[in-house]
Structures are given as structure tokens and as C-alpha cells.
């Protein structure tokens, strides 16, 4: 052993000192930062966008929810309540909002009607992010005084108020300063905030983390027990999140953890799960433009062939709690037009074979492509299940996994859009329109929401009619009829309604994510950090 004695001794010493160092550090270094302990830590997919008018997915919407405010906010069911607007009046072909006069932006600037007009125009003119909720029926916005804004309508547009809950208001004076070459200041706004929200931006590294801290000038005030800030982390792997939650190094997970991990977290000593009975649904979208699924009978055959029980069995997230519940067709529970009597979908191979017999295609001639979004592990199991189920009908099934970004691109072409696409969606606004119009209107075909490429005159007519009708009862009936029509056309398989489930550390409580009575249908609204409570 004395041969390489000195080298071994050095290595040994290094090892010992590393261990000592580790021991010392773990006891001394970590707890020295008191106020940071009061930051809530949340993680999401790989990157985030903080330009409020470019933000589009779930992760982005959580950031925007906390940095920015909107005129109105979801208030349960399909309704909206006042927020930056104290109230509104409908006046012939226009809607007039009265604004609060006590709102200041993070800069200290007062929020006025000009900011609202600027924000609306910016969102619509850029045409990115969630601007699709702004129907072409909306005309122009005009400031009629410092705290009054008038929106004129080209045509009646029933989902208007709900849509306004998705238009974040920016500090126009600040944004204007950073416009270069007519870029809407989008480079600047992708790295800075110009909002009035309860939290303001500290730093934003789109692939690492976004940090924000409490904004003391928030017009509604931020409760003392709310977190002092938020650390929004990107791209943590499931085992990492799981370990961090156990060791109080993290507070709320993304909703993409595997169900088995959630089960373990629900039993953990320091951990729990947060379940939001929101209006999210899983959709297996069938490409209605691609043989053999351009034949309604083949689509119906697939609907009957799926083992719905098995799908739902995957989503068990705790002892006795299943995140998946039977669906009522295209309109999730809690939204206008939901019809509990719409068939409880179940597997029926006999009927599947009957439908298949009427289909003009022979299954053996076709290979069905079933897609799942890589990163959402449980979707692979659904794909495998479909492979087995549809295989029983004689279809050859190929499974393809695509990252979300690639999927959103694939669906733009019906010739390459996979036959079956798994999409989880919830209405962007509390209005049924935001879900159905963007999924089934023929003019919207080819987005991730409308991977069906449905082209049905009857459906288009009903969707347009529901937009124009102002009487809620009439709209309710239209949506019920529409729901029945869609089930008949079978462009989509509706496997389950979904509770969105998060793993969490016990020190955080988020009433909107835990208490069904306080939960709002637009899921990101439940991530208002100011409504959370952090125990010390």
C-alpha cells in the first residue's frame, strides 16, 4: 500500500475534508436567509414567457396571473367579477367599463383608461399568445376620460366579458419607452414587467427560474401570511421535484408528475397533494380529415373500443382519490352547456364492431398513428392502451411521441397530423365559447386545440349562433344541442374529466388549489400567490 502512499493519502484527505465541509455547510450555510424562506417555490415545464400578450401556455399564465391584472376576473362558473374595472354597462353595440382610480403600476404610474386601450390594441395587433379569445366581432376600444373605456362591437359577441379576463393591462407609458422598430417593445417585455400585479419581477431567466417579490403598492393589498415572493423554476425532473418536496426544498410541483409519485406524495410525512376540480378535460382528438377517420363510423368504432375504465385507473393519485372522472362529452362539468345526461362513455366492443362494419374502410389497410406528448409520462400508457384496444378491431397502431412544440406544428397539416392526439385542455376564459369555438369551428382548424380538423356546417352554425345570442338560457340550450351533435359526429374521444393535481410541501396552503368551493374554472387564476398561505 505504501507504493502510491502519498497519492492515496492525498485522496483520503480530500475525501475526509470534503465530508467535513459538507457537514459544516449543511448545518451552517443553509438556514441563514430568513426572508427567502418566505418565498413559494413552484416548478413547471422547461421555459416561461413573461410578455403578457405573448404568454400562452399554462406555465406562462401563472406568471402573468401574478405580475399583471385584468379588467375582470373569473368569479365561479361562467361568470366574471370586477377587478381593475369597478363595473360595466352594456349600451347598444358597446360595453363601457368604469375603472378603479387607485391602481398603480410597479413603476408608481397610475393605471388609466389609456393603459387599457393600449393593452387591448397591443394584444390584438401582435396576434400572439391568447389573442385568439378576442373574436373579430370586437371593434375598437376608446378612452372616454381617465377612468372610462368604451369597447364597440361590430357584431354581438357574448363571450366578450369572459375574454376580457385574459387581456392583461400593461403600463403603457413604460412600454412605449422601450418600443424599437415597431416591435411593440416585445424584446423588452420578455425580460421586464410592466404590470400592476401583487408581485413584481426580480429576475427572469427563461430556462432557469423567474423570481418575483411582493409589491407593497398592490391595490388590493397582499396579506401578511402570503409568501413574500415566488421562485418559479423551469425544467426540474420528476425525481428531483419529489426529493425537494420531501426535504422542504420546494413547495408546489407542476401538474405533470406521474400519478404514482403523487400517490407517494399523498402519503408522505411532509408532503400532500393539491387537487383542483377544475374544468380540465382529456381529449383524444381524431383527425377527421385523414383516412380512415374521415368516416364517422370508423371514428365511432374507436370511441366504443376504448377501455375507459382502464384509462381512468391510471389516474389514481391517492388512496381513494382518482383524478379522472367520467366525462359528459365536449363540455366539462361547471361550464355552461354541460349536460350530465350525455352518455357516460364506456367500452362496448359489440357496438364498435357494428360501427366498423359500416365504415367504408377495412382496418387492416390502415396504420393509425397515436400520438402522445413526451414529458407527460402517463399519456404513453394511454397510447399503449389504445394500441391494444384499437388492435382488437384489426387496426395496426403506431405510437409516436412528440414534444409539445413539435406537436403544435404537426397539427397544422391534416396530412401529417396524427390520427389520434392526446390533448388536455381547459377553457382559457370561463366561457364555454373559448373551449368549443377554438376546438370545433372549421375556421379554427389546425391548432393544437382543433387537431380534429372538424368541418361541419351544422356545428359552425351553432357556434356562431351561441356567440351572437345574449340570453344565457338560449346559449345554454345551443351548447347542449351542440354537445349532442359533436358526440354524434365523434371527432373526439372523451375519456375523462380531470382534476389537476399538484404535489406540495405541507408548509404551503393554497385554498384555491385545495378547496373546491374557492376553486376557479380558469386554472391559472388559482395560482394567485397572494391567496396562498405560507406557514413558518
Amino acid at each position, binding site marked *: 500500500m505504501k507504493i502510491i502512499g502519498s497519492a492515496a493519502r492525498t485522496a483520503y484527505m480530500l475525501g475526509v475534508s470534503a465530508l467535513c465541509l459538507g457537514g459544516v455547510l449543511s448545518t451552517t450555510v443553509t438556514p441563514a436567509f430568513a426572508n427567502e424562506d418566505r418565498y413559494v417555490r413552484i416548478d413547471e415545464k422547461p421555459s416561461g414567457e413573461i410578455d403578457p400578450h405573448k404568454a400562452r401556455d399554462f406555465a406562462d399564465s401563472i406568471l402573468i396571473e401574478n405580475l399583471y391584472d385584468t379588467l375582470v376576473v373569473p368569479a365561479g362558473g361562467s361568470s366574471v367579477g370586477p377587478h381593475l374595472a369597478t363595473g360595466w354597462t352594456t349600451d347598444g353595440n358597446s360595453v363601457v367599463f368604469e375603472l378603479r382610480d387607485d391602481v398603480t403600476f410597479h413603476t408608481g404610474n397610475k393605471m388609466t383608461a389609456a393603459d387599457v386601450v393600449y393593452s387591448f390594441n397591443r394584444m390584438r395587433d401582435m396576434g400572439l399568445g391568447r389573442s385568439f379569445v378576442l373574436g373579430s366581432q370586437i371593434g375598437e376600444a376608446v378612452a372616454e376620460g381617465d377612468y372610462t373605456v368604451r369597447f364597440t362591437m361590430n357584431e354581438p359577441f357574448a363571450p366578450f366579458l369572459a375574454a376580457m379576463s385574459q387581456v392583461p393591462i400593461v403600463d403603457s407609458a413604460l412600454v412605449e419607452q422601450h418600443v424599437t422598430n415597431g416591435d411593440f417593445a416585445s424584446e423588452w417585455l420578455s425580460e421586464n414587467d410592466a404590470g400592476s400585479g401583487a408581485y413584481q419581477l426580480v429576475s427572469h431567466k427563461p430556462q432557469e427560474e423567474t423570481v418575483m417579490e411582493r409589491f407593497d403598492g398592490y391595490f388590493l393589498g397582499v396579506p401578511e401570511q402570503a409568501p413574500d415572493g415566488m421562485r418559479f423554476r423551469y425544467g426540474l*425532473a*420528476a*425525481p428531483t421535484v419529489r426529493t425537494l418536496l420531501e426535504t422542504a426544498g420546494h413547495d408546489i410541483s407542476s401538474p405533470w408528475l*406521474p400519478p*404514482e*409519485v403523487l400517490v*407517494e406524495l399523498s402519503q408522505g410525512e411532509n408532503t400532500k397533494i393539491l387537487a383542483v376540480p377544475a374544468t380540465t378535460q382529456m381529449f383524444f382528438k381524431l383527425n377527421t380529415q385523414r383516412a380512415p377517420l374521415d368516416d364517422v363510423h370508423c371514428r365511432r368504432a374507436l370511441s366504443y373500443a376504448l*377501455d375507459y*375504465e*382502464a384509462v381512468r*385507473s*391510471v389516474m389514481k393519485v391517492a388512496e381513494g382519490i382518482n383524478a379522472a372522472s367520467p366525462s359528459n362529452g365536449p363540455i366539462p362539468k361547471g361550464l355552461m352547456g354541460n349536460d350530465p345526461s350525455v352518455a357516460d362513455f364506456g367500452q362496448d366492443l359489440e357496438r364498435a364492431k357494428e360501427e366498423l362494419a359500416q365504415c367504408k374502410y377495412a382496418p387492416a389497410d390502415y396504420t393509425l398513428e397515436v400520438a402522445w406528448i*413526451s*414529458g407527460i*409520462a402517463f399519456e*404513453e*400508457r394511454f*397510447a*399503449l*392502451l389504445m*394500441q*391494444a384496444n384499437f*388492435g382488437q378491431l384489426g387496426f395496426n*397502431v*403506431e*405510437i*409516436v*411521441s412528440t*414534444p409539445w412544440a413539435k406537436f403544435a406544428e404537426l397539427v397544422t397539416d391534416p396530412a401529417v397530423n396524427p390520427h389520434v392526439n392526446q390533448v388536455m385542455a381547459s377553457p382559457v376564459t370561463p366561457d364555454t365559447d373559448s373551449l368549443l369555438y377554438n376546438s370545433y369551428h372549421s375556421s379554427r382548424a389546425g391548432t393544437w386545440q382543433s387537431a380534429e380538423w372538424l368541418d361541419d356546417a351544422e356545428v359552425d352554425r351553432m357556434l356562431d349562433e351561441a356567440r351572437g345570442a345574449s340570453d344565457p338560457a338560449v346559449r345554454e340550450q345551443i351548447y347542449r344541442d351542440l354537445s349532442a351533435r359533436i358526440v354524434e359526429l365523434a371527432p373526439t374521444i372523451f375519456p375523462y374529466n380531470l382534476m389537476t393535481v399538484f404535489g406540495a410541501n405541507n408548509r404551503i396552503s393554497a385554498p384555491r388549489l385545495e378547496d373546491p368551493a374557492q376553486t376557479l374554472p380558469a386554472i391559472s387564476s388559482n395560482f394567485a400567490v397572494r391567496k396562498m398561505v405560507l406557514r413558518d
Partner: protein
Amino acid sequence: MSSQVKVFRAMPQSFTAGVFRNPLFLSGFVIATIVVLVAVFAPFVAPYPEHAGPFVDFGNVRTPPSAQHWLGTDLVGRDVLSRVIFGFRQSLLMAVVVLGLSVPFGVTLGIVAAYFRGFTEIAIMRVTDVFLSIPSLVLAMAVLGVLPPSMLNAMLAVSVTWWPWFTRLAYNVARAVVSEDFITASKVVGASHSAILIRDVFPNCLPTILTKMANDVGFIILVASSLSFLGLGLKPPTPDLGSMVASGANLLPGSWWLTLGPAMAIVVAVMGFALMGDGLRDELDKAKK
């Protein structure tokens, strides 16, 4: 008398005998042989061969190892052991095809560059440098990002990163060979370039190339599993050891058997071939002295 002349004869027997006395090679050879046999006879060895195909049993998911399922069942109720056994098949197929594509291509370029020198050499070796200047995992990912996911494309992507190593190896060995007197002799005798390359240069590079190939079988399995871990693997339900580890890892430590089985399988397969390569190299070094 003349009938006794054999125009071909295998390598000097002392080398072969020495190799089989080398403990590293021998243990690697035994492991690799078992892996190959298991892979070839997978349908007969696997307890539930149908579980390697489109099969689900949601009533039987994620059961820990038991007498029926030695390595437990996975998230859709398939027998992990059966899938591991079929996974060997895919891994070996991958390695064989990647080597089959990249070795002839890479070695040909390497010895051609070493033999002809001049512009040919510069062109080939600079292009090779370009490929070698991109870390292979990154390059394979970029290529796989381009191609739709399939067994063949995964093989192509890995091959694209693999051939330059053989070009460089063959080039280095062949440069030494080309300066040998017997190459001059062949030229003087009037042998054609192709004959010299095939009969004189190539056979003398072969032992080194074979050694690297033995090692590489394992490393190709490793790279393929890394790609699968990043989500660039084979199409389900094809059993793929790397993806099995990746999906199982999310459920550690709870459902450890989902990771342990396939991870050990990768380790055993890679180990077997790496040991073989090591032993071969030992003997090669001895032979040189």
C-alpha cells in the same frame, strides 16, 4: 505437394489461444455469448413473449417482483423480465447495424486517406474532424431531431456520429502500415490500389479495428440508451432498455424494479463486450511486443 498449399489460413494460432486464456476476454466472452443467445432465442426464453408487443393489462400494473414476474410488472401490466430480454434484442440489433453501417464506411475512408495522401487525405480527414468536433450525443440528437423516430433512424443517427471514430482509428493504424516495405513490394509487383488496400492495408488494421468493435458494441448500447433517456428512443411498444430506465427513474425509489431490471441489463451487456474488448487489447499489446 502443391495440393498442400492453402492460400488462406487463419491468424497465427498462438494469438487465438492467448486470447482465450485471458481472463478478461474469457469472462466478457461468456457474458456476451449469453446475452447474444438470450437475445436470439428471446421468444423461447422470455416467460411472456407477447408482453414485448402491443399488450396491456391494467388490472396487473406495477406489481413488485414475484414468482410469476421475476422483475415485477410495469405501468401497463407487462412483465419487465420479458421486456428486458426482448430489449437485449433491440440493443444488439442496434449495435450490429450501427457497426455494420459505420465500420465499413469509416474504415474505408480512413485507409483510403492514409494510402493516397495528398488532397484525398486532407479532404477526408478534415471532414472527419468536423464530425468529431461535435460531441456525439449532441450530433446524434440533432440528427434524430431531424428524422422521425424509428428504429432505423435511431441507428442512422448513431452511425452518423460513429463512423468518424473508425475513420480516425483506421487512418492512424493504416498510416503506419502504409509505410511498411511490403506495401512498396506490392506496388512494385504491380498490384492495383484496391488490391493493396484490401489485401495488404486492411488485414493489418483489422485486429485494432476488431478490438474497438468489441468495445463499441457496449458503447453503442450506452449511447442508444442515453438518447432514449432524453426521449429520442424507439417507438413503443418496442422494448427499449434506455426508455425503460428513463420512465422507471421517475418512480424511484418506490417502484425500484422498473429501473433496476433494465439498468442491470444495460450494464451486463455493455460490460460483457467491454471486457471482451479489454482482453483483446491486452493480447494485441502482447502480440506487438
